[in-house]
Every structure is written in structure tokens, then in C-alpha cells.
């Protein structure tokens, strides 16, 4: 494993609010710089017979873009978010029921998939669903001269040579999800993973702080 100093990892300002919607069973909004995503979770609720799974809950993820209808890109992101959540959630505790996670993009200024993952994790936690671990999303961009930028803005993403998004779990800091664009060497990949693992510590720390803030009223 590569050593990465904490100072080399810079993330934009991030913020989060839980339980901001009244209808869903769990909701959260996550803001990273100018990128902002709102998430709502419904469930465990009744499931359609065609989607029923006898030994675990059915998880559905919907990503709504800021403008227009969801397309092929959103479908592929939905798959990534869904399978990441499935890895973290203990779905076998609620067989024959359905969980629905809706992610509404409020503004996209880079690192969108990472922000979606963070919003999803906070919303699932808010809904009180049982999870084996937490997860967070980190995006890294490699610039033309080989520098690694964590949590890039849309402009930085456009100029970059390669862009990677990882989902990192909270217990062992391993990679749950990986989605990449552009070509890069094996060494660059390992470096990006190490940087993301470092960045994930900050995000998990923030998760804990925001949950603590939320429960401060009934301590």
C-alpha cells in the first residue's frame, strides 16, 4: 500500500442535512462544493410480486438528472449505486419487501457519482436500515501532467486525462465500486486508490459528526 500524506488530499467544502423531507422514511442532502444531491429512501415497503425476492429485499435506485429525463448514463450510474448499497445493506433482514432510493441531482459541478453515493449512504442511515458498514464515494481526476486532483470540479474533470470514482467501505477501507473514464497506468490507479482511501477517512469523520449533531437533541 502506498503512503499518502493527509495534506495532499484536498476535498471541497462539504455539508449534509438529514431528515429534511417529511414523506420519505429517510432523506438526506449532500453538498460538495457546488455539486448537490438530494436523496430519499422509502422502505421496507410492500413489493410488486414480479420483483419479489424470497430471501432478501429488492432495492431500486432512481437517479433523476437536473434537467431532462434519465438516460443511458443515469442507468449505468444507478447500477453502480444500487450494487454498492446492496453490498453495505443487510437486505436479508427484510425478505419480500422493497426499498426505493431516489437521488435527485440539484446541481452538477463535478464528482457527481461520488456525491450521489454519499447522499445515498446518509439517507439509508437516516432511514434506520441495518447496514454492515458505511460507504463513501470519492472522485479523482488525473491531469495532463499526471497530478491527482481529488473531488474535481466540472471544469477540472473536462481538462483531465482520466477520471475515476471509487466507493470505499468504512471498516477495511477497501474498494466496493470503481468506475473509470480515460486511460491510465496501473501505478496511477493504485495511487488514486490510496488517495481515495485517505480522503474517505475525512468523509467518514464527517458522517460521524453529522449523525452526532442529529442525535444531539436526545442525548
Amino acid at each position, binding site marked *: 500500500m502506498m503512503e499518502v500524506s493527509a495534506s495532499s488530499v484536498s476535498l471541497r467544502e462539504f455539508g449534509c442535512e438529514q431528515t429534511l423531507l417529511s414523506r420519505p422514511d429517510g432523506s438526506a442532502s449532500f453538498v460538495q462544493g457546488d455539486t448537490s444531491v438530494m436523496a430519499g429512501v422509502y422502505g421496507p415497503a410492500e413489493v410488486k410480486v414480479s420483483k419479489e425476492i424470497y430471501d432478501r429485499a429488492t432495492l431500486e435506485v432512481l437517479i433523476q438528472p437536473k434537467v431532462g429525463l434519465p438516460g443511458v448514463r443515469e442507468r449505468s450510474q444507478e447500477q453502480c449505486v444500487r450494487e454498492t448499497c446492496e453490498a453495505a445493506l443487510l437486505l436479508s433482514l427484510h*425478505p419480500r419487501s422493497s426499498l426505493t432510493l431516489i437521488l435527485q441531482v440539484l446541481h452538477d459541478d463535478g464528482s457527481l457519482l461520488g456525491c450521489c453515493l454519499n447522499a445515498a449512504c446518509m439517507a439509508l442511515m437516516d432511514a*434506520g436500515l441495518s447496514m454492515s458498514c458505511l460507504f463513501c464515494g470519492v472522485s479523482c481526476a488525473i491531469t495532463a501532467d499526471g497530478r491527482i486532483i481529488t473531488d474535481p470540479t466540472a471544469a477540472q474533470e473536462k481538462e483531465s486525462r482520466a477520471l475515476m470514482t471509487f466507493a470505499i467501505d468504512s471498516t477495511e477501507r477497501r474498494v466496493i465500486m470503481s468506475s473509470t473514464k480515460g486511460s491510465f497506468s496501473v501505478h496511477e490507479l493504485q495511487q488514486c486508490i490510496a488517495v481515495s482511501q485517505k480522503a474517505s477517512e475525512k468523509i467518514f469523520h464527517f458522517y460521524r459528526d453529522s449523525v452526532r449533531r442529529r442525535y444531539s437533541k*436526545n442525548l
Partner: protein
Amino acid sequence: MFSSLKEKVGQVLVPGDEFGFEAEDSISLTESAKPERVVCGPGLRRSGDRLVVSKSGVLRHKPPHCFWIESQQRRYIPAKGETVIGIVTAKSGDVFKVDVGSSEQASLSYLAFEGATKRNRPNVQVGDLVFAQFIIANKDMEPELVCIDGSGRANGMGVFGAGGLLFKVSLGLVRRLLAPHSDIRADLDRLFPCELVVGLNGRVWVRSSSTQQTLIVANLLQSCDTMTAAQRQQLFRKVQQGAL
């Protein structure tokens, strides 16, 4: 494990936090080693020889060795022995289907009422509210409710009378209302006399001497979730002065 759990009581934990057996837990030579016993409630899960937190919330402890995570949740998941407020949605054969706000409708046999026999059916209509207790509730089976206790008595359960107002609050608030010596209940008592039925599924039913007072109580309770104790007492005082 016991001592490490005890240390964290009252703190906020998130899923993935672990408790393991400490190897250095001193073994005394004189006393025979007592096996440690820990009873895990909601939000704690055993995985191999470790204890893993699976929900975010505050760790609570009840002596001698019960631990659980108190979390704010909205969706109800049936548990055996819990009393809930349900809405009758259908009559099918000899069971009623009851909506309790969980993922599946619960069934309630017409014989599970006080004094009910094959000939003497209870008067329950679709749309009625019932206060009932789970006798079967697990993830693999349809949950089943009854309106009698072990000795066949109603014991407060059954169909609701006319009037009153049903509303939903968070599951955390419900548990705070039902706790012995609940301070919210004490504050409410000082306000007006009212009839209060609290189901563990987050449904609360209130009836008071006038519609206005019923609505005030409902609104107060719904706003309790997001207030600290001091804020709540201030609000209750304001209402008392305004209403009296």
C-alpha cells in the same frame, strides 16, 4: 467486551463500529472466570466473535447486561409482543387484514377478541382502528395480531370508539412517550386532560374534551421531535397561557 460497551453508553455510533473481546481482560487466579453475558437489542449484531453496530444512533444500556441502539426511524418493522394501532383494510374469511405501516399487512383473527366465539363475532368494520398486539412477527412469516392477552382478557386492546384523532410521529418519539416517567407525558398532563393511545408503530390517537384541544395536543406532539427539553417546556407553557 462488557467494559468496552459500557464505556460507549450514551455516545452516538454509526454502522460498522465494532466491539471485540479484549485479550488482556485480566484473568484472576483466585476467582473462577465468569462467562460474560451481553444481551443485544436492536441495532447490534453478532458477527463471529465480534459485536457490530448496524444502525446509527445512541447506545443505551439497561442493567445488568442489555444493550441496544436507540435510533430515529420512521418505518415500523413488526416485533413480537409490541402493541400497535392498526387500520382494518379488509375482511377475508375469518381474518381481518390490518395495516400497521410495515411492509406487509398483518392478519387478525375474529376469534382473537375478548369474548368472541364462532357464533358471537366481534363488530369490526373495514376502516376501524384497532389496538392490538403482535403474537407472530418475524421476517419470514406474515405478522399476526391479537386483541387479547394470554388469559383471554382485552386488557385495553380492541376496537376504538368514535371520535378522536389519529396521527403519525417518529418511532423514537413514541418510545419516549411510552417510557416510564416520560417527561413529555408529564408536561402534557399539566396541559389538558386527554385520552392518549400510543402504538409502537408510530401512530398516536388522541381524544380530548373538544376538537380544538385535540388538535392542539396533536400539533404539540408532532413538533416534539425536533425540540430540546427546554424548547418544549417553553412551548407548552406558551400554549397553557394562551389556551387557559
